């Protein structure tokens, strides 16, 4: 049995927790309740009579084929974004972990993109990867439309995933590097003495031992891909959801509908569906993937 220090009274710990609780209630639960209210009513933006409409807002959302398109786009974006950020972060972390000369400076550089706001990164990449003026312009002049995110939805989706991965790979890198540093060096040294190279050591020893970190990152990055402020910012700054709804991710659709279309009710209904979807995904991740993760 561990020796534990406990508070004797109940009010002191509550008082300590109070500021945090107040913030959570004020900035999450209260708005969430308001969203639920909006989702079941139809109310003019400036206020007035809120008419209860039951499930009409949800029916309207589900009946819209473009809504299902945005669910599909969001899924693709979140999955591809998660896999690419974790893969890139892992490769970079494994390389930096070898402590070759200069790895300190490189480590700093790899983290840097994470400090840049998503919309800013999106704006930069819109120019860098623009089909007529950017890096690919010369390729396009030989092979027309080889890269054209303004024409092909698939290219546009790749564009936003690239921006997302560029920024968030630095984030996964931090966690994975920290994880790697807790892998006992005796294990990797022993493997090295047995003659296995860096790649073999990574696959057989380091990656299995990183399982808890990888699991944590997959949950966080999936959520980020679905509802992250960056996801909205990147899409709004690069493609505006286009071409022809090709990158119309769910958060982009919600923000556009609420704040540009002033359709608060429809946007609230979509928000609730999105919250539900995230809960389902997180549940699946914990139920089926976490079982295979060994923490000790």
């Amino acid at each position: 049995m561990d020796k534990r220090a406990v508070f004797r009274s109940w009010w002191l710990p509550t008082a300590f927790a109070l500021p945090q609780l107040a913030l959570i209630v004020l900035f999450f639960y209260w708005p969430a309740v308001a969203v639920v209210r909006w989702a079941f009513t139809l109310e003019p933006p400036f206020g007035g009579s809120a008419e209860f409409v039951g499930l009409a807002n949800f029916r309207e959302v589900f009946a819209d084929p473009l809504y299902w398109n945005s669910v599909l786009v969001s899924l693709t974006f979140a999955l591809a974004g998660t896999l690419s950020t974790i893969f890139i972060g892992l490769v970079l972390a494994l390389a930096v972990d070898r402590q070759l000369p200069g790895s300190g400076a490189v480590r700093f550089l790899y983290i840097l993109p994470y400090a840049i706001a998503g919309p800013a990164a999106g704006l930069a990449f819109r120019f860098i990867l623009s089909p007529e003026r950017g890096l690919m312009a010369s390729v396009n002049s030989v092979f027309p439309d080889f890269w054209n995110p303004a024409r092909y939805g698939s290219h546009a989706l790749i564009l936003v995933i690239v921006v997302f991965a560029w920024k968030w790979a630095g984030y996964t890198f931090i966690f994975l590097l920290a994880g790697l540093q807790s892998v006992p060096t005796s294990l990797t040294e022993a493997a090295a003495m047995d003659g296995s190279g860096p790649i073999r050591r990574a696959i057989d020893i380091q990656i299995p031992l990183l399982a808890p970190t990888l699991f944590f990152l997959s949950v966080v990055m999936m959520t980020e891909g679905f509802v992250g402020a960056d996801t909205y910012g990147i899409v709004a700054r690069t493609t505006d959801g286009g071409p022809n709804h090709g990158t119309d991710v769910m958060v982009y659709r919600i923000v556009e509908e609420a704040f540009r279309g002033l359709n608060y009710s429809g946007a609230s209904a979509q928000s609730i569906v999105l919250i539900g979807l995230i809960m389902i995904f997180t549940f699946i991740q914990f139920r089926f993937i976490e079982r295979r993760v060994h923490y000790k």
Partner: protein
Amino acid sequence: MKPSVFPFVLTGLLAATTLTATTLSATSAHAEKTRFEFWYGLTGDLSDRVQEACSKFNQSQGDFEVVCTSQNAYDATLQNTIAAYRAKKQPAITQIYDAGTLDLMLSKAFVPAKTLMADNGYKIDWDNYFSGIANYYATASGELNSFPFNSSTAMFYYNVDAFQKAGIDFKPDTWEQVEEAARKLKAAGYDCPMGMNFDTWATMEQFSAIHNQPIATQANGYKGLDAEVVFNKTRFVDQVKFLKRLADEKLVVIKTKQLGMDVVPAFTSQTCQMIQTSIADHGTIGRTLPQGVKWEVAMLPVWNGTERQNSLVGGASLWVMAGLPQAQYKGAAAFLAYLGTPEMAQWWSTVTGYIPVTKTGFDAMKANGFYDKAPYKGRELAIASLTYTPTSENTRGIRLGGFTQIRKEVGTALEAIFMQNADVQTALDQAAERSNAVLRRFEKTYSGQTLN
């Protein structure tokens, strides 16, 4: 740990909670001065000009102090005004863009312009506003609810040097001439005779107005909330087919920010030789084109044999919000009267490029010779375009709910047509169907209300 957009979306939706942070205590340090707020959506250079106007007003008298705050975008201004109104922290005056007019009109959250000025003892000659401008913001019976402020309309810009090199000896007054000019420019080696983007303002709204085509039934929505869009059944469809044919022949070239360059930079970098854009870009174009390049601005082309109608006004108007202390309304009325003086009107149009909204303002500028020489020469054509004919049912304005979304639907259809070769009629039909769904939801949201 993970910044999520949710708290923002959620708090934003709960309008009432977000604005509590806005700090401006009503109790002023200077007890003798009444302070009131003015929110606007202009940014950059234009925002500095608004600030200048505010300080001019504050220095011109000792009773009131206007506090002017940029909300960084038109749609954000509308959004923030809504949030502020719900939290009972609304500004006295707010600048709302053309597409948000109906939302304000149905809100019951404003003091009508006429009432405000009459109550505070100002005599305003409401007929002094250009009818093409005033009608956009007035009720169906012609009453102005808000003050027209910064106004513009779409114009046609072309590169005279390129025209001369290509041996074109006419002005592009008709679309037939535009096509002919485009062919000659192409033959002379210009890769982009005419640039185009997917903004519907010039391509759909202005085109429909000057060709006297409706965008929606019920006089473009003026006569009732049950209006339905009809842009998929008018000459606009033929126009899109025409532009698509020219695009296929590379006579019209798509220029969007996604491709790397929008139409205005495409024109000022002399990549494209003809574009349609706002008169508000006149100053930018003049400043950005290299010295010595000859260019010209003209009214938008019409099809041969069409009787040209007046074009539509774009921009924004100033609304006075309801529910504030009486003293603030005195200040707001004084401020709006000050902005309306011919001297201020002239100053505003000179420094910004927006057109004057009143006849006396325009006449004063004309008398001063403002329009006679560069860089302002050509801007008078915007007034000529706006006042070309008395307004008809189709050219009065567009009074449709959720019009920002409708613009987006049409823009997406154009994107599908020009970038992905979608069928013109099918794509526009789809956009119309989706636009009508937006209108029906709007009608339901405001059920029981009628337009007056």
